[in-house]
């Protein structure tokens, strides 16, 4: 017999109408919340679109993000979802032939072309009268911010009916941690060594793809992290309720590339948001409509110090002038998006 907690039909039965102090909390998987307010990840009936047994590293933020996003998208579309994947870690660790972790129709073509392939899938579904089947494309920051940007921009400007999700771990992790257009200033990568007056990745370079997406005036652009599961799932759901080109940019810490402890993935994602370095917001047709306010802003050092890619900034003596320049970026984000909680 199926244990009650694994039987989706019995979920309602387990809700206890007792007033605990956690009620109303947005803590992940809080079983005391009303069933309708719980995350999809807390549901025993979740699809497991990216199921267990794959070969991601321990603490992989991308694996976590992809599972969160796809399960939410599968729920929002009632299982009528096709996924297109760019080449990268996610593709490699999920489908070593003859195995696959995907429990939904999934297509991988090339590194640079996931947006165009997804546009083609959407066009095919439309031509076949399958408007109820939706398309989600996904890739890492290399496939999105760098090599795939032309295809992504084309998908945006044609307003093709695709949700594109970028899992941003801020470097080419699959090839051994090289700098991408999303690598933050002073971060050490294999192609931006931590030497010289301005060690690590150059400051003043890189692309802000959420803002580039907004410049296309597409119906929906949002950023999120793997730390705020309710926020992430709500954004996926909102995106899937809309038609046209939509873009979701999810910060996914990478223990390998960031030099962080696997157990710290969610904590670091939260600190990225709470430091102001990763603004979490939503935009519609080019205008910011919502921001996730920062509850208790932390200095950037708190976010950077646990990551060995920034170890050179905390040497003896610490590089306070460089840390100040990173703090200035966080301050600018807070001012630009109005992130301080009122």
């Amino acid at each position, binding site marked *: 017999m199926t244990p009650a907690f694994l039987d989706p039909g019995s979920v309602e039965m387990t809700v206890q109408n007792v007033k605990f102090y956690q009620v109303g909390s947005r803590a992940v998987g809080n079983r005391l919340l009303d069933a309708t307010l719980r995350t999809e990840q807390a549901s025993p009936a979740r699809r497991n679109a990216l199921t267990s047994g794959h070969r991601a590293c321990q603490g992989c933020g991308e694996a976590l993000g992809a599972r969160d996003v796809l399960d939410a998208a599968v729920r929002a579309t009632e299982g009528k979802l096709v996924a297109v994947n760019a080449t990268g870690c996610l593709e490699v660790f999920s489908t070593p032939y003859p195995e696959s972790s995907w429990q939904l129709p999934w297509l991988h073509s090339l590194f640079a072309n996931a947006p165009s392939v997804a546009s083609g899938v959407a066009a095919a579904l439309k031509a076949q009268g399958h408007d109820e089947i939706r398309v989600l494309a996904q890739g890492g920051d290399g496939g999105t911010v760098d090599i795939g940007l032309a295809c992504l921009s084309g998908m945006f400007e*044609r307003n093709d009916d695709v949700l594109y999700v970028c899992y941003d771990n801020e470097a080419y992790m699959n090839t051994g941690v090289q700098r991408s257009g999303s690598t933050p200033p002073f971060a050490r990568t294999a192609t931006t060594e931590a030497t010289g007056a301005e060690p690590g990745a150059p400051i003043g370079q890189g692309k802000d793809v959420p803002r580039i997406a907004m410049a296309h005036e597409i119906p929906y652009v949002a950023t999120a992290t793997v730390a705020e599961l309710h926020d992430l799932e709500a954004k996926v759901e909102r995106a899937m309720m809309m038609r046209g080109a939509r873009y979701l940019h999810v910060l996914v810490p990478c223990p390998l590339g960031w030099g962080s402890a696997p157990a710290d993935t969610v904590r670091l994602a939260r600190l990225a948001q709470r430091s102001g370095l990763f603004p979490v917001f939503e935009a519609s047709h080019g205008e910011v409509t919502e921001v996730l306010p920062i509850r208790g802003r932390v200095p950037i050092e708190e976010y950077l110090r646990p990551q060995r890619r920034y170890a050179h900034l905390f040497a003896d003596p610490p590089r306070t002038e460089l840390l100040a320049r990173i703090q200035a970026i966080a301050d600018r984000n807070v001012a630009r998006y109005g992130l301080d909680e009122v």
Partner: protein
Amino acid sequence: MRRQLEGSRAIAEAVARCRPQVVPAYPITPQTHIVEAIGAMVRDGSLSGCEFMTVESEFAAMSAAIGASAAGARAYTATASQGLLYMTEALFNASGLGLPIVLTVANRAVGAPINIWNDHSDSMSLRDCGWVQLYAADNQAAVDLHVVAFALAEELSVPVMVCVDGFVLTHAFEPLDVPGQSAVDTFLPPYAPRQVLDVDDPVAIGAMVGPEAFTEVRYLSHYQLTQALTVFPQVCDGWGRPLSTVDAYRVDGAETVIVTLGSVSGTIKDVADEFGNVGVLTLTMFRPFPYAEVRKALGAAKRVVVVERAFAPGAGGIVSADVRTALAGTFAEVSTVVAGLGGRAVTKPALRRLVADAMSGWLGERLVFLDLRDELIEQQIERMRQRRASGPPRPGGAA
């Protein structure tokens, strides 16, 4: 019924009769008229059930065709030259995934130097991308090959490239018979994919394959591609047009046979007629290479002259290398003639001199460039020798 039509227009109409469901389009000369015409037919409703996408590059065009085909739609696009090279990575992907996409290549030279005119450098450089390659000798063949291409592609689940000489065919107006809708509907059933992105029966397409199975996957691609040698004649029979992997013209008993592909075949046949004892073998199918048919047609010839519209720099002939393989063990001499690069006309007087050189025995197994301006070449080689600008001095070189 024959109508006076531009080649591109006739190709577009033939493609439309095949009811493509997704056509991603990106302009490049001399292909553009084809996708313009398809776009217009989608707009005016004469081609219904088709999504016409104006994409941002040829790479995106082939990528969208890949997505569409994997989602179970009949997908078509067209390109040429730089555009074909820009979609190279996606071409290999389409064949690797076994997606029956049909692509028109309006053959054009590849730069630098930039040149918009006709030769076969573009499609020949993609000889090994795993696609069937068909070459149209004239516009009627171009029309029929497109209809046949969809049937062949979908029968085998392999992509097919129909190569049509840019300008010479794409922009030529002539009386052409474009098949009617009912004829094509009878011949070409709706596309039934081998595997498809289906929410009710999910599959993962495009997995990573390691050393333990990659060779087998590649072997099976080769096996499947070579099936086209037998399936192509069958679909041509079914379509009822006189098309075959090779077109043998007066080769029986001919001591000298000229092998070629594409539109230059007509001029060569005219010249062959003047000589009487010269045959012409026109390849319609170049990939897979019809070794048996070529050997059968050429096995008795003493001299085989391969007139090619492209070449492999640093090596020589592309088509003639395959012809030599087909003729291994026979006594035929095979020469390579590189002709008509970048739109240079392949004229009857030049071909007459060529045939005379072949019959005199002078040509032998040489590699020659037809109508090469020798005085210009000598001048330039001398100039390059004099102006050698880097590296240590070489014995006999410039100071």
